[in-house]
């Protein structure tokens, strides 16, 4: 019997199959699942890496050292908020700090030593890094044109003593960069005090007028948002209590745009303008006579210098109308306390003479001990300090002299420009960077020994030198460094030993030094309360507090006895020449993101929100291009 299959059977079987599928879950279930599938893009699905917890530390990206409250899932921070009442920052945070947890995963992050030879960048292992460095160390000191120099972005740390010891052992230089923001004009003022240097801070809450010669006081310098907040609060008080900011600058910077008054001035004529204000103050007897009599010396000499800067001459030099100079001087005298800040090494550097004129202006206004309070430095370890190399200012680095340059991870390119560093190098110099990033100075180095990224290691953080009181945090790490990361400090120690030099053992005595001082109070962020340091029983108890993100703040220092010199020896002719001569040409650099220039780390990629997807800030590339054109 033969089975006859026809087309009809095929159609019937096909119909049966269709009916069978239709009567099965296939179409309906597939419809549902496919609908979900279309909503399933290849986007990451963030899952908590553990229970929610809040941990405290401090931000290391700029000198403000703001308190950070990290929102963590397990060990992973996913965001930060500021800590209101924190002694270093009082609730301020900037875009860089808010994205600090991204930096460990930055595309420029390096986790293995890298060497550039013959224009090619190659990864090397630990042994090769040690060998390269030890050979360079051994060669140092033999030739005075090929000395060793180490640049330390945050002097005063326990690690800084190692760098000083290394400079001592190799007969080299221990270099410190210029202080950021307004600190430079405070240094200039402190140097005029009897017996050398007096540390001064800024207390904006005690000032009614803030004159800024290009220092970005409202935006970039000091504690984020602090002066803007104080000024806005004062606007709702009687007119006599209002804080006003006067920005004197050659360009309408963001700080100038936000200031209550903007005085555009010809570039490089700041000294003449400051002396013009001094002239009006002295000529109209508006200066703080009591302060000048009790606390300053050399008034007559200064007065005769200032006498040459009548408003009409100042107008001619600076382009600021004489009436504006006179009115500003009168307003300052009528609205005491007032303070004057000058320059910013990162964005608007001033000449030493301009800083000197600004310091004198502060003295005429009686600013020291009022809005410019005296403060003591945070306690440091002092054992054997006398035997260590003292600091060489960055500006004093001799040209063509350095054969081996070591750049600590804390060095910011904004304060230590590569163009200037390059001048100091001799031919074929080895440039070693401990930056964890293949960016900024880390990219320029010929030997990169990447260390822990921000938040991956404990850091000693002193607050900004323009804060009214010293602060110190031994900021705990929030993240673990990559497991096989060779620690650069260990490589340097190994290389030093291999070169036949000796270094003292690493110390971690900062907490002990602080405890021994019995000064100040310590802020516990989890309890939001202060405790006197004298009440802390042991170094361990103090270290534990710091490990929880605590921050120490000093007591107000007593007013010292002594006088400020209105003019230092031999200063008058230089000042006169600088103010009357051709405008000094200092390279003004463009700042891009807030605080980017004083940060040693590249910004998180997320900050493209501010530079590319909005026009709030100039994108770094465009800024570089326009700087190159200029």
């Amino acid at each position, binding site marked *: 019997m033969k089975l006859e299959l026809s087309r009809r059977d095929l159609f019937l079987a096909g119909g049966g199959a269709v009916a*069978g599928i239709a009567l099965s879950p296939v179409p309906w279930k597939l419809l549902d*699942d496919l609908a979900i599938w279309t909503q399933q893009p290849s986007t990451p699905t963030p899952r908590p890496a553990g229970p929610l917890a809040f941990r405290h530390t401090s931000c290391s990206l700029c000198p403000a050292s703001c308190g950070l409250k990290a929102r963590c899932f397990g060990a992973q921070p996913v965001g930060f908020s500021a800590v209101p009442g924190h002694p270093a920052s009082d609730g301020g945070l900037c875009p860089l700090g808010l994205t600090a947890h991204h930096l460990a995963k930055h595309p420029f992050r390096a986790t293995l030593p890298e060497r550039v030879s013959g224009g090619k960048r190659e990864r090397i292992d630990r042994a090769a890094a040690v060998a390269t460095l030890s050979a360079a160390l051994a060669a140092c000191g033999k030739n005075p044109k090929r000395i060793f120099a180490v640049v330390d972005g945050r002097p005063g740390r326990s690690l800084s003593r190692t760098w000083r010891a290394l400079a001592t052992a190799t007969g080299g230089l221990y270099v410190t960069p210029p202080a950021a923001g307004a600190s430079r004009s405070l240094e200039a003022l402190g140097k005029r005090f009897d017996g050398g240097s007096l540390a001064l801070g800024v207390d904006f809450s005690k000032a009614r007028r803030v004159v800024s010669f290009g220092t970005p006081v409202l935006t970039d310098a000091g504690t984020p948002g602090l002066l803007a907040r104080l000024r806005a609060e004062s606007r709702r008080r009687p007119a006599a209590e209002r804080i006003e900011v006067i920005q004197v600058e050659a360009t309408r910077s963001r700080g100038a745009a936000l200031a209550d008054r903007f005085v555009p001035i010809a570039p490089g004529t700041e000294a003449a303008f400051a002396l013009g204000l001094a002239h009006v103050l002295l000529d109209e007897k508006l200066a703080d006579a009591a302060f000048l009599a009790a606390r300053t010396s050399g008034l007559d000499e200064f007065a005769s210098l200032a006498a040459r800067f009548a408003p009409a001459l100042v107008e001619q030099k600076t382009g600021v109308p004489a009436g504006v100079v006179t009115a500003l001087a009168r307003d300052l005298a009528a609205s005491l306390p007032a303070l004057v800040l000058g320059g910013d090494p990162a964005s608007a550097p001033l000449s030493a003479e301009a800083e000197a004129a600004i310091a004198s202006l502060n003295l005429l206004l009686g600013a020291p001990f009022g809005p410019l309070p005296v403060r003591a430095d945070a306690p440091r370890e002092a054992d054997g300090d006398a035997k260590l190399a003292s600091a060489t200012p960055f500006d004093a680095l001799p040209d063509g002299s350095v054969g081996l340059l070591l750049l600590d991870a804390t060095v910011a390119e904004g304060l230590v420009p590569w163009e200037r560093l390059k001048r100091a190098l001799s031919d074929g110099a080895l440039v070693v960077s401990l930056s964890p990033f293949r960016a900024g100075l880390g990219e320029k180095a010929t030997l990169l020994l990447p260390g822990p990224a921000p938040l991956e290691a404990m850091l000693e953080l002193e607050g900004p030198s323009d804060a009214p009181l010293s602060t110190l945090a031994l900021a705990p790490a929030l993240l673990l460094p990559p497991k096989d990361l060779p620690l650069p400090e260990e490589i340097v120690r190994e290389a030093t030993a291999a070169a036949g030099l000796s270094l003292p053992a690493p110390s971690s005595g900062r907490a002990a030094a602080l405890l021994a001082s019995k000064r100040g109070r310590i802020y516990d962020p989890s309890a939001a309360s202060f405790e006197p340091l004298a009440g802390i029983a042991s170094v361990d108890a103090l270290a534990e507090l710091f490990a929880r993100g605590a921050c120490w703040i000093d007591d107000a220092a007593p007013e010292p006895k002594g006088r400020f010199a209105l003019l230092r020896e031999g200063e008058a002719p230089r000042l006169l020449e600088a103010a009357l001569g051709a405008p000094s040409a200092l390279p003004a650099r463009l700042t891009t993101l807030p605080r980017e220039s004083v940060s040693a780390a590249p910004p998180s990629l997320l900050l493209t929100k501010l530079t590319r997807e909005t026009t709030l800030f100039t994108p770094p590339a465009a800024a570089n291009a326009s700087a190159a054109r200029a």
Partner: protein
Amino acid sequence: MKLPAPVSFAVGLVPALAAGWLLFPRLLYRTEAQPLAFNHKAHAEGGMACTDCHAVAENGRFAGLPSTESCAGCHAEKGESKTINALVASYVEPGREVPWLVHARQPDNVYFPHAPHVTTGKLACTRCHGPEGESTTPRAYQVNRLSGYSRDLWGPSMTRAGRKEWQGMKMSDCIHCHRAGGRESACLDCHK
């Protein structure tokens, strides 16, 4: 001989039905094994409540699965059984979390807070999770190859007919219960 029409039809129908009902679910879902043969029943009989391991924290977040650390609170050392030995050797000693496959895991854009349901609404755990606490071995974890979601979201039955209340956790199931209780809410109450 010619085949009768119903037979020809059935030749197509029967394999299609078989493929649709028997083969399709096997193709659609991939079965994965749990890392450890956890016995809920033994723990429950030992006097433990669900919330001893699956608790709502003070901040209102549901911890979900217990951490290895909390397992180690009782099972710090090897010895009692093969599973405990495996737990200690693979997770407690190296300090790793157990990579459990979570039957009830919702899609990423779903926000399901336990606190309002359990603490405020006083719903029993079994209302949504079924008699999970009586299981002696973990159920096989089945994952939908297309959506990547756990099979528990749809439920064990392909037609969803005749399923118990805890079998299935689709949005329509959430809405059904919320509507019945007059608790209709905004999209962003349950989505993130």
